[in-house]
């Protein structure tokens, strides 16, 4: 190879063997004269011969950092402005230690080792499942799923495999985004495994599920009833036990979606009849990440009926060949798609396992008292905000009682659209609540406000002042 050889790589900080001497040694031992020889399997008419638009590399980290920062600085974050956005991605405090753990190279870069060499990480996963199980009151917990909605979708398909029925009831108040995910998972009637999704009305006076409509839609064909607590519109389903009872009376499975950060003060769904519990993991120590922080889970009683329908991977505590030594192994691997391809239970793959590290750390930091503490801090702040907002002229909080961190604010009588109001709030350095006017036209000009432990009294008061000004 001549020094002018165009195929000789240029040294690059991410590639040790781009050094000419190393590269030449590879060529020598591999008995390769021209690099094209190693691509001999690819027919020449498959090769791209045009010009690329992708530019040449930026090898200097300083230069690359400047480039990226110059773009990302255009963003305005929830640290720059005060954000009252929730709706499936919530602004909770992320303890510094959670960030420390998920940025540890040992946790952030690997893929899969052996039970002994992955022992530390497997233990974190087991601690994630164990602690989450405590919060939701269930003894069987799988490794995390992509999101709240995908967890719900898989759980409803589990229910269908369990009882063989095809109709699932979901609340009309459900997050349209999660509902779309569930409908994707429910499939098409022309194909196998189709689930017929039927919506149950919500009570406009309370924001809760309309039990009369539920009763009207329940029959022996109903596979599962899905509801959330708190629901998308913020309301706590205080009649949850009654919903479960009604569903069970026709032999349906009860699938409940929960927000685990509420579970220090709110009863676990296992106590009001849930058979399968799903939910989000993002509030437990994971940043919003523009929606890239979401994660989900599935938890059930430790019964074969449920365990043998999980689509996820599961870690189990066990022992080693040395008595008394703790180890972790996979349980029920063969029912996964890795084990059984198209005959597995749905499918699994890369998920959000790194977030389980943050979640486990978060739950350990909080402990039982921390969850009570944060639950109280959230519910009190949210109530305070709702009460103050409700006093503004023309502004109405639709359901003033029985919510956790989110509530619906209606602006009909101000004569102004949520869209306009939120644009004006930006000038006050505030992200207003999620606009519901397209998703729920029956609620008029309404927005879903989210208040958490991160919102101070001053910030809430500033929101009220700003709303007063922009709605006047």
């Amino acid at each position, binding site marked *: 190879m001549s020094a002018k050889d165009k195929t000789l790589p240029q040294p690059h900080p*991410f*590639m040790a*063997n781009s050094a000419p001497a190393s*590269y030449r040694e*590879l060529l020598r031992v591999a008995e390769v004269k021209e690099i094209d020889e190693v691509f001999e399997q*690819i*027919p020449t008419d498959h090769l*791209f011969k045009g010009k*690329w638009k992708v*530019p040449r590399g930026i*090898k200097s980290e300083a230069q690359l950092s400047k480039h990226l920062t110059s773009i*990302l600085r255009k*963003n305005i974050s929830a*640290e720059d402005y005060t*954000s009252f956005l929730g709706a499936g991605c919530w602004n909770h405090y992320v303890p510094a230690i959670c960030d420390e*753990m998920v940025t540890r190279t040992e946790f*952030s870069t690997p893929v899969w080792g*052996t*039970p*002994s*060499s992955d022992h*530390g*990480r497997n233990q974190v996963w087991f601690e994630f*499942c164990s602690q989450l199980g405590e919060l939701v*009151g269930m*003894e069987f917990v799988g490794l995390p799923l992509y*999101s709240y909605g995908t967890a719900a979708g898989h759980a409803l398909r589990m229910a269908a495999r369990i009882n063989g029925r095809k109709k699932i009831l979901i609340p009309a108040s459900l997050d349209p985004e999660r509902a779309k995910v569930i409908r*994707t998972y429910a499939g098409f009637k022309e*194909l*196998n495994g189709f689930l017929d999704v039927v919506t149950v009305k919500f009570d406009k006076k309370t924001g809760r599920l309309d039990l009369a409509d539920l009763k009207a839609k329940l029959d022996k064909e109903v596979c599962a009833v899905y509801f959330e607590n708190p629901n998308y519109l913020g309301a706590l389903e*205080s009649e*949850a036990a009654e919903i479960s009872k009604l569903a069970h009376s026709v032999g349906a499975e009860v699938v409940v979606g929960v927000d685990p950060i509420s579970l220090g*003060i*709110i009863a676990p769904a296992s106590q009001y009849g849930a058979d399968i519990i799903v939910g989000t993991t993002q509030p437990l120590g994971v940043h*919003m990440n*523009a929606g*890239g*922080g979401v*994660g989900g889970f599935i938890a059930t009683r*430790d019964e074969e009926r449920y*365990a043998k329908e999980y689509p996820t991977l599961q870690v189990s505590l066990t022992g080693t060949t*040395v008595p008394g030594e703790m180890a972790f*192994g996979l*349980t029920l691997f*063969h029912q996964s*798609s890795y084990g*059984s391809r*198209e005959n597995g239970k749905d*499918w699994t*793959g890369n998920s959000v396992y790194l*977030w389980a590290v943050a979640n486990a750390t978060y739950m350990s*930091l909080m*402990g*039982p*008292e921390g*969850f009570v503490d944060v639950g*109280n*801090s959230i519910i*009190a702040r949210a109530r305070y905000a709702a009460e103050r907002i409700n006093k503004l002229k023309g502004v109405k909080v639709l359901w003033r009682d029985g919510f956790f961190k989110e509530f619906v604010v209606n602006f009909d009588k101000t004569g102004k659209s949520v869209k306009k109001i939120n644009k004006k709030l930006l000038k006050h350095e505030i992200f207003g609540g999620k606009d519901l006017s397209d998703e729920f036209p029956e609620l008029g000009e309404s927005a879903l406000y989210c208040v958490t432990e991160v919102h*101070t009294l001053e910030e809430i008061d500033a929101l009220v002042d700003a709303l007063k000004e922009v709605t006047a």
Partner: protein
Amino acid sequence: MIKSKIRKYHAAVWDEPLVMDLSQPGRRGAFAPAIEDEITDSVGDPSALVPTALKRKVAPELPELSEFEVQRHYLHLSQQTLGMMGISLFGTCTMKYNPRLNERLVYQPFVAKMHPHQDPETMQGILEIVYSFDEILRDLSGLDKFVFQAGGGADAAYTMATLTRAYHAARGELAQRTEIITTVQAHPCNPATAAAAGFKVITLPLEKDGYPSLEALKSVLSNRTAALMVNNPDDIGIYNPQIKEWVKAVKEVGGLCFYDHANFNGVMTRIRAADLGFDACMYMLHKTFGGTKGGGGPAVGAFGCRKELVPYLAGPTVEKNSDGTYFLKEEGPKSVGRVREFFGNVPVVIRAYSWTRAMGIDGLRDAANISVLANNYMEKRLLAIKGVTKGLPELTKRRLEMTRYSLGELTAETGVTTVDVQNRMTDYGVDAFWLSHEPWFIPEPFTPEAGELWSIEDIDYWIDVLEVVCEEARKDPEFVKNAPYNQVVHKQGSTNLDDPKNWATTYRAYKRKHASKK
């Protein structure tokens, strides 16, 4: 012949208890912000705000620990994880360096504290990077639009299955087009997601050339064909040279063609999905494009397609206005809707954009060359080790970025299996190799992938360790079968974890089932 000096190694052993067992009553690791007096004066006792029927009565049995104790516990567990601290040539996963610069950037508020429903004018930076990365992938693939909603490669395969449904449904042909075709060496996520989306799966077996024949494909094509989902090259390093003819044949009967580009690393800048005729493809940003793997996500399966299929893509998509600003566009009526909430694992897309800009088109070319060359280097050395054979040895053309090998001869001679060897190699600080996806059609398989990251010394060390272990196996098979010895813990016991009496995915279940052992 062993080239390296075999170094002393022992994993960190803290004998770290479960966090639940570290608990001491009354300790606190975190407090929520104290409720201001004005708020308490206004709303009263917070516990009275929870409807009576929903009040929690029994506290969860979570650990009670100080902040430092929690930190130290999880640091210990991180140290008890080998991963990329040693050498990891885990095939199919394309182990790469994950630049720390990206970690520094994505944990700053301008990424971490962004909300997906913010006014687009406040998220121009994120939208610009997502859009720019879409443009990069369009260039590399020849396709017309990429979306990043899928949370991994399998989710991108599922995206294809759902898009296939929506496409044929829109043409009124879904009731008839119920079959998706794949091959036995395609990743299990292809048949699994096709089945989960409701399709019947047809799996073509390998034939003498290392891939199914074109005739075999044609024999299963019909007006029932909905789509083809394939990898190429597959993860045994074989490239199907008839792939253009495959795609043409599937299209002739009205099916869609999906290219699972999990094994893109060796062919970057050489082939483009669109040029081979594919309608759609998938790249793994957490593998090929330098994103972190996180031990299994958060990941991104970037899904791209031709413009004819863009109306079916999962929404929302990131688009550019004529004034150079960016916006999120909701999906139209033909769209599959959503496969997951929001528009993707944004930090992973940012990492991938950053990595690709650092590499550049020249770096991508070099990386592909180095990956394939390093694999061919490995082959020369590995096949010199007694007990190692090449999968499908009759196929003599040079393999791409991976080769599947077999330890079948070693197992026949010594009883030591590929899993035993894997366990023993960790005693030298070398983490697991990839075995094979189901089904195993090569006995006692192992599949290393050198990629462009690992130095020639790392690769040599890896090979030398394998050779040492093979020698150990012949000298004392029981010793290797009972490995590891230098790891965090010993070999997992023989308890059947598929037995409901034994499995315990939570500590509460474990204590109930195994009370006598505690």
